[in-house]
């Protein structure tokens, strides 16, 4: 099992994802430079957080044109697992691999804090080890995490079980107070209809070790690994 962590100019969660997948969880992992186009060595691709191209224009708007992104789209179309975290989620939306956009936080400030995420769909490659409705404690760190899509798209997402994570209280209630950025319907993470592409604003790679305050991020990475193992990856 081998993961590729994509590095755009301005990416900064690359080393954190590399550390969590490699040193902490023991998987094989490589950095993938944004100009690389051959992804055939990988079972899963991570688009990490950061400020690719400085978030200039719009977060993710320039990174989607990087040579690697055409390959990521093909990789996803072939059923490969692609997880976009924070800026990676923004890139996936800009690239049209996921619906909707990430607007500036409703209060217009950056937010770095722990959040509670309710797992709304456990039938994805990213949540297979979670219980339905399980609450994960995962930190966010972003200025543009306010998920937006029109009402029809939101309803469609919910109908197809594409809303994977919602911001919630510690008891699992998706209240306005537990929503840190104004995201529509408290959405923190979504997948595509095929469920092989996931985008999420919170950072699971920041909570894989107890010394950092929590280990709930492991549920997500270990779900990926279990799914790939079942496939014979």
């Amino acid at each position, binding site marked *: 099992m081998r993961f590729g962590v994509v590095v755009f*100019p*301005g990416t*900064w*969660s690359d*080393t*954190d994802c590399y*550390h*969590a997948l490699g040193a902490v969880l023991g998987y094989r992992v490589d950095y993938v430079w944004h100009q690389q186009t051959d992804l055939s060595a990988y079972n899963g691709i991570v688009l990490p*957080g*950061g*400020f690719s*191209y*400085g*978030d*200039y224009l719009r977060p993710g708007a320039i990174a989607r044109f990087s040579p690697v992104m055409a390959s990521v789209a093909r990789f996803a179309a072939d059923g490969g697992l692609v997880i976009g975290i924070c800026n990676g989620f923004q890139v996936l939306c800009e690239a049209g691999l996921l619906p909707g956009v990430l607007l500036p936080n409703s209060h217009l*400030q*950056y*937010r*770095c*804090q722990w959040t509670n995420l309710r797992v709304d769909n456990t039938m994805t490659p990213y949540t297979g080890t979670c219980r339905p409705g399980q609450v994960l404690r995962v*930190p966010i*760190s972003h*200025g543009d995490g306010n998920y937006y899509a029109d009402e029809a798209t939101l309803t469609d997402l919910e109908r197809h079980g594409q809303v994977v994570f919602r911001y919630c209280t510690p008891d699992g209630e998706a209240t306005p107070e537990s929503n840190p950025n104004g995201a529509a319907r408290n959405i923190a993470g979504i997948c595509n209809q095929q469920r092989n592409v996931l985008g999420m604003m919170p*950072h699971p*790679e*920041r909570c894989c*070790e107890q*010394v*950092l*305050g929590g280990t709930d991020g492991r549920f997500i990475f270990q779900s990926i690994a279990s799914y790939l193992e079942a496939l014979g990856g």
Partner: protein
Amino acid sequence: MPVDQRVLDEIALSRAEYDLIVQRLGREPSDVELGMFGALWSEHCGYKHSKPLLKLFPSKGPRVLVGPGAENAGAVDIGDGVAVVMKMESHNHPSAIEPYQGAATGVGGIVRDIFTMGARPVALLNSLRFGPLSEPRNRYLFGGVVAGIAGYGNCLGIPDVAGEVCFSPAYSHNPLVNAMCVGLTEARSLVRGQARGLGNLLMLVGSDTGRDGIHGASGLASRTFEAGRELRPTVQVGNPFLEKLLLEACLELVGRDYVVGINDLGAAGLTSSAVEAAARGGSGLDIDVLQVPRREQDMTAYEVMLSESQERMLVAVKQGFEDRVEAVFRRWGLSSVVLGRVTSDGMARVREGDRQVAEVPVALFTDPPQYRLEGRMPKELQPHREKRLDLLRDLPEEPGQLLLRLLASPNIASKEWVYRQYDHQVLTNTVVSPGAADAAVLRVRGTPRGIALATDGNGRLCYLDPYVGGALAVAEAARNVACVGARPLALTDCLNFGNPENPGVYWQLEQAIRGMADACRRLDVPVISGNVSLYNETQGKPIYPTPVVGMLGLVDDAARHCTSGFKCPGDVVALLGGGADPQGGLAGSEYLEVAHGLVVGKPVVDLAAEARVQRVVVEAISRGLLHSAHDCADGGLAVALAECSILGGMGFQGQVPLVAGRGDASLFGEAASRIVVSVARADQTNLEGLARAHGVPCQVLGRVGNARFALKGYLDLPLTRLAAAWRGGLEDALKGLP
């Protein structure tokens, strides 16, 4: 022909300094040369008024790898071949004019100082001072500075892990913005900011050069503002994305033997970067300004040499290896050009194509006149210092009400509004986050160790007694890292003062440095780097003298640290330390300002007691005795206990010992060298034994538990009320609420 006074004013050189230049040079300087002298002989680059005093700091120690002034930052060995590189720097004046960009470029500059030395920046801290938030201008400055630090630091992906924010009328319209950066590298990979080796090449990398920031060092940072002068063009504009690329590209060069040195372009731009690098290498240089990539047309040699355009670096490369360097930067999408060569005759030559525009010995540029002035205590201070505090009405309000007011005071209230805007977790090393303890703790990968970081400085105390205030800044910063279980190892500082040509200010500067130096010796902490920011005043009134200390501590086992909040109901709460103070720590306290509107009294420091209490708390944490430890500082014992309760989410029942025969001193006195700790009942005697062995007082105050906070004879409040006051204080003040 005698030089025009307006020209000298522009670059902030005195007539006498100009005459000295003519005398040493043996001729009138050219305009480019004069501009370069103005920058290099400015207070900001040349430390004309502070250098003789800075020599008082102890700066040596077995762990010190690079001391102050030698390179862009200081470095210490923390064992296993790992070096910590760190420095703090001010960006006060730019932030007063344009808070977002002023603060952002302050972060950019200090980060460059760290990666210039080959170290990966792993932490940012910042120490901020503003005028009262009741004034709209101060709210604008505060919001802009925090947003600027967040905007730049978050984009770089460097966690902002600790710091402080204080408010006082003394900083109205002249905020203090001190940014600190800490980096890690292998001790043997430290890169020097030097240019040496005849024929080696000087390359300029990163951003193109524009007209921004010309005269920033001389005009902005080295004198006071005059009314009506438009200074905005002297503030630079930051591009954090470019800096991130520069950071990664420069770190790729670390360990390549064809790289002779790397020096950043900060204050005074190419002038100071090139001249400093040549001075460190004992070389000369010959550069051609026509090679400098520009983003504006028709720039003169003068403008190119003095531009403070951000995100640029100078790299000295062995001849023949320029293509290798170029390739590294190109991969990161950055331009690099060969600008000139290293020479061996000690001359700094600047050409514009074939035309020579400057030729001055490097040693002349880097040897500005130094001024040892006569300081004098300001007369008006005496009555404030001698104020009879025992005649003040004791506790003019109900004690519970006073405690709530203090907890809601922006100086004491939770700073979550600030630090939640900073990414404090990226790089996944942050073991203790902002707000949880008196210092941040970061793990050091590949070792069991952790580093603890804190900043501290108290302008009110320094105003009342700069010697004691300076000593207490060092003592409290050391105590902060001790409270998480770290041994203080080294410090960096930022000395924020008014105009040193004012004898009262010079006295403050000298006294504060003497106090800091004595505390460093007593606590065995060398100063490894620092920065001086003078001329902080508006309308002729100096700020409070404000030396800020950035402290590094070492934790042997990063997992074995301590935080402030109470952990277990039933635990015993005790106060460690404390010494004799006839005013019971009321001098310069937050209480006196909040309850009486006074900044008066004579603060006291006992460095021997300080060293003892720190030893006890570090030892107790390393033995695993303590469940919590919290420095007893702003707001005194009642506030410290309340903070432990709020952070732990559990109440407290007990009493405070009587101090100076007064209720206010007992509850809210800020006598130094005291730490509130909690221990399991079974460990109480062990803690008492340890304290006794070190001659440190250990008084049991009460027990952790239930949902109320009660201090016998004074107050009994629900914990929820305390928490609401403390958590909401800063945001309410920002909304203009009383």
